[in-house]
């Protein structure tokens, strides 16, 4: 159950609607967990949210283009980097946190995490069954290993066992320069970044809103974070 503030109000989560993919499932999941949710691109509404969610399905370039055209890049920079508002990026939303992405061209990301986003490349790696080529996109349930190091009260993986599976569907993955930003890794041919965490910034490559109980636990942890 979601813990409420001392005055009884349930926290307001702002889901950023920048035209990229299914927001409904994220909204419904958070509502089920007891959060008060708004889905919007309106800057004044988002500024009243306690925490933000940046979802997204689609291509890196399109995602950044939409964020720019809606005036969200500068706004979110202030909210997240200056005002230290918590934000969690999901799938494409996590990838956009990076400095750059190489999907269909070279694109600049939000740059909040020192990382780049590249396509799965198995040349030079042995993947899975020796007789079988590893398929791209990486689609399905895969297990993650938590790497958030210290006993982290602000981990979105609290209460989950190392090795739990989540649902992934992507062809590109984030490569972090600073390993301390990596909160979880997953293995598909090689280890890749499954989740990131830097101060008030979180990201999951997998879809918590599509990962049944395990995913709902991650979202519940995010709602309950005290930052």
């Amino acid at each position, binding site marked *: 159950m979601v813990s409420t503030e001392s005055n009884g109000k349930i926290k307001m989560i702002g889901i950023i609607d920048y035209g990229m*993919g*299914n927001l*409904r*499932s994220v909204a*419904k*999941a958070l509502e*089920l967990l007891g959060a008060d949710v708004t889905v919007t691109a309106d800057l004044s509404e988002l500024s009243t949210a306690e925490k933000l969610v940046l979802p997204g*399905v*689609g*291509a890196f370039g399109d995602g950044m283009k939409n964020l720019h055209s809606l005036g969200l890049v500068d706004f979110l920079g202030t909210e997240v980097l200056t005002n230290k508002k918590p934000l969690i990026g999901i799938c494409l939303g996590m990838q956009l946190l990076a400095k750059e992405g190489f999907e269909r061209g070279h694109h600049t990301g939000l740059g909040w995490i020192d990382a780049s986003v590249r396509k799965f490349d198995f040349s030079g790696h042995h993947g*899975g069954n020796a007789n*079988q*080529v590893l*398929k*791209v*996109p*990486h*689609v*399905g*349930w*895969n*297990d993650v290993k938590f790497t958030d190091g210290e006993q982290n009260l602000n981990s979105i993986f609290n*209460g*989950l*066992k190392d*090795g*739990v*599976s989540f*649902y992934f*569907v*992507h*062809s590109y993955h984030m490569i972090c320069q600073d390993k301390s930003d990596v909160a979880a890794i997953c*293995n*598909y041919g090689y280890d890749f970044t499954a989740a990131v965490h830097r101060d008030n910034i979180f990201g999951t490559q997998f*879809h918590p*809103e*599509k*990962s*049944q*109980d*395990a*995913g*709902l*636990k991650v979202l519940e942890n995010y709602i309950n974070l005290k930052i």
Partner: protein
Amino acid sequence: MLKIRIIPSLLLKEGRCVKGIRFTSFRDTGNPVTAARIYDAQGADELLFIDILASKENRKTLFDIVSRTAEECFMPLCVGGGIKDTDDIRKLLLAGADKISINTAAIENPKFINKAAEIFGNQCIVVSIDVKKSGAGQHSVIGSDSEYEVFSHCGTKPTGLDPVQWAKQVVEQGAGEILLTSIDQEGTRTGYDLDLLKAVADAVEVPVIASGGVGSLQDFVDGIKKGHASAVSAGSIFHFTDQSIIKARTYLAEAGINVRSRELR
């Protein structure tokens, strides 16, 4: 390690679940949202909804089913059936679908796959291929004593396309996954067409979901080990027998196949 997915398939007609044999003789098998809830509770890895009536009039019913399922089941949903344009795709994704399956529309206009993949991402676009053994088709690369042919329009129209060549083509156009159904096996509960499955799975670099014919849990194992499928889908075995997702998962795990564990802690 990436797990093999167990995907129950729900055929929809006028808001109800239906099931048939070889794409005919459909019988009502219940309420789709109720069925989805049960599969979710049993830990299905994904749900596949195919609207077999697929008419424009029926569209609203489909959106409604997807929407209500997405509100309660926080799991991947793949939806197909009569999807012809990007507007349909957009509406289904907004209603809660994660992936869209296209079949006839891709055959009639292969460029539609490119367009859809560019707008929504290729991981969203599943191309569904229905195949029959047919004497009237092109000679296929699969076996010298049998010929396979792709059929469109819910298994009614021969296309003259060879399934392996067509599969390669759709992947080139941007398909992120292939849903391969043997029309001859569908509903018979005598197993997947393993020759067909292996030929297609080995020919493409995207995941192939096996469909059509499962009658026993061993069929799932064969689909993966012999057919090289990345995911196994089934309808009849879950509707008409006492096999369940839970039993399937246990059976696959005991056969040494990497399936998802549901323990959280």
